């Protein structure tokens, strides 16, 4: 009867051994999955930079394309993307953040609100080329804006709004409710509370979402195919009614449509695009981590 008290703790029963083995194998499998997923990302970055950096020069970045884009620079594409991004931001940010504020601070819990949420989920899922069709149908043709920065920006903006709404709403909801209650209890109105307490605290999160949303918009090709992108336009756009070149479209064209295109230039364009993406991501990450460190709640 002394057996139960003297159960040896050194010898593991077979069950535990098997359980541990399963766990080890399982962990190995998961680690493998992570490695398989992540290694290509690093490889992509290294590969593009190693092939493309040689093509980067001041001339490449600031000159107009020549010889059917086989030589010269990509300046108009850079400028075009720049203007498109700003145009998208000007439209998408107020609408997106406004909608997020509505959903987080004002919206009652009823069927209309649920409909709005479903609409947002749907907007987020619509294929980018369908946005291109829509932009073509409404902005280019019906409203007669033509192939223009205006049409392109409007199309990209509607595509970006759902992204901004969801990240902004998350940032707003993360602000503790107790702040709102305190503000109301000292006689603040709802908007005063939002403007003075909630919004400033949610700002880093909102900013991160905006940056990532605009980054995606800047990299999209399908929505701008029929709404703004120009094939070979060696001059800068002079108004929002002009068509323009754009970086992602440019990369697409020179890698598929131009015979005899020097590979170096293709990689060079890819480098510019990749640097842009890396840059935006880094800015977003920095904002996020600084905000986390400075948070007062």
């Amino acid at each position, binding site marked *: 009867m002394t057996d139960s008290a003297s159960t040896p703790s050194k010898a593991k029963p077979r069950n535990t051994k098997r359980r541990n083995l399963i766990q080890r194998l399982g962990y190995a499998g998961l680690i493998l999955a992570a490695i398989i997923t992540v290694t290509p990302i690093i490889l992509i970055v290294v590969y593009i930079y190693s092939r493309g950096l040689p093509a980067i020069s001041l001339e490449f970045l600031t000159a107009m394309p020549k010889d059917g884009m086989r030589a010269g620079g990509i300046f108009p594409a850079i400028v075009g993307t720049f203007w498109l991004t700003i145009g998208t931001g000007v439209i998408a940010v107020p609408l997106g953040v406004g909608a997020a504020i509505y959903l987080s601070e004002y919206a009652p819990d009823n069927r209309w609100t649920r*409909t709005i949420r479903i609409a947002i989920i749907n907007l987020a899922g619509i294929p980018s080329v*369908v946005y291109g069709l*829509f932009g073509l149908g*409404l902005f280019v043709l019906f409203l007669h804006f033509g192939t223009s920065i205006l049409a392109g920006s409007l199309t990209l903006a509607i595509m970006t709004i759902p992204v901004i709404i969801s990240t902004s709403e998350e940032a707003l909801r993360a602000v503790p409710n107790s702040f709102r209650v305190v503000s109301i209890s000292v006689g603040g109105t709802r908007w005063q509370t939002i403007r003075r307490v909630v919004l400033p605290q949610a700002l880093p999160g909102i900013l991160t979402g905006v940056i990532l949303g605009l980054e995606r918009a800047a990299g999209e090709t399908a929505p701008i195919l029929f709404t703004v992108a120009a094939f070979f336009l060696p001059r800068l756009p002079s108004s929002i009614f002009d068509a323009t070149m754009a970086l992602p479209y440019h990369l697409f064209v020179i890698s598929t449509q131009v015979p005899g295109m020097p590979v170096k230039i293709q990689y060079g364009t890819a480098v510019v695009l990749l640097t842009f993406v890396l840059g935006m991501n880094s800015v977003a990450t920095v904002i996020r981590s600084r905000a986390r460190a400075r948070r007062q709640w």
Partner: protein
Amino acid sequence: MQSRNWKEFLITRMIKVSGYSAIIFVVMIFIFLLREGSATIIEVPLKTLFSTRWYPIEGYFGILPLICGSIIVTIGATLIAVPLGVCCAIFIAEIAPRWVREILKPLVELLAGLPSVMLGFLGILVIAPAVRQILNVPTGLTAFTGAILLAGMAIPTIVSVAEDSLDSVPRTYRDAALAMGATKWQTIWRVTLPAARSGVLTAVMLGVGRAIGETMTVMMVTGNAPVMPTGLGSLFRPVRTMTATIAAEMGEVANGSVHYHTLFFIGIVLFVISLLINLVAARIVFRQQKRAERILS
């Protein structure tokens, strides 16, 4: 005091309008797609529309090969992306130490930010030749190549949504399981993952939605041959997706022609598909939430 009330009233109104704008956009998109695409029903007899030959120049507008092309590429991408993505998410959320997480998450976010045209670019220059050599097929531009790249685009979506969902499983669930003597592995598979089931499912559906809706990548690497895929071997032959068709052919159609209308019709099909996927995903999330509320209250 009066002026402040006015200003506040105006701002609140604008916020409310922004909130409802999402519904307006969805409706607008649907209307304009319908406007340009509904003529197809009249112009193209249904038998032709759903036939297996897509050859617009000679008047064949069968969209089945395009639908099947999209399906086969999406299935391929899903088979690759879901295991990798979910396992990666589990790894990041449950097992990875803090410093690994700090490296992995930005990397996955970087993958999410890569423009589709850049992945297509790499597909043409790197992946397609590799596929051709390794698998000994006549051309590297196949459905399989497209599936690989689409998986690359879907994985970040799956990882981030699934990881969020796993993260938000209450600590108490895990603690309870461990306290009962389960290993960490058992806890993950029997407690945490089932608890996050709806979020992971949503992640997968969003990933699938992303894959179906992708345009540029598939346009650049799947070969653009609108033939009906027959049997497993067709995975390694060129196909064409609905999205690529629109993007490739829209630039060359005459405004108002049958071809033009049919392309818009394909856009409607894509819109409806993404609508269905999103509605199902939303239904899953809502239903799970209600159940969780009942259990936890």
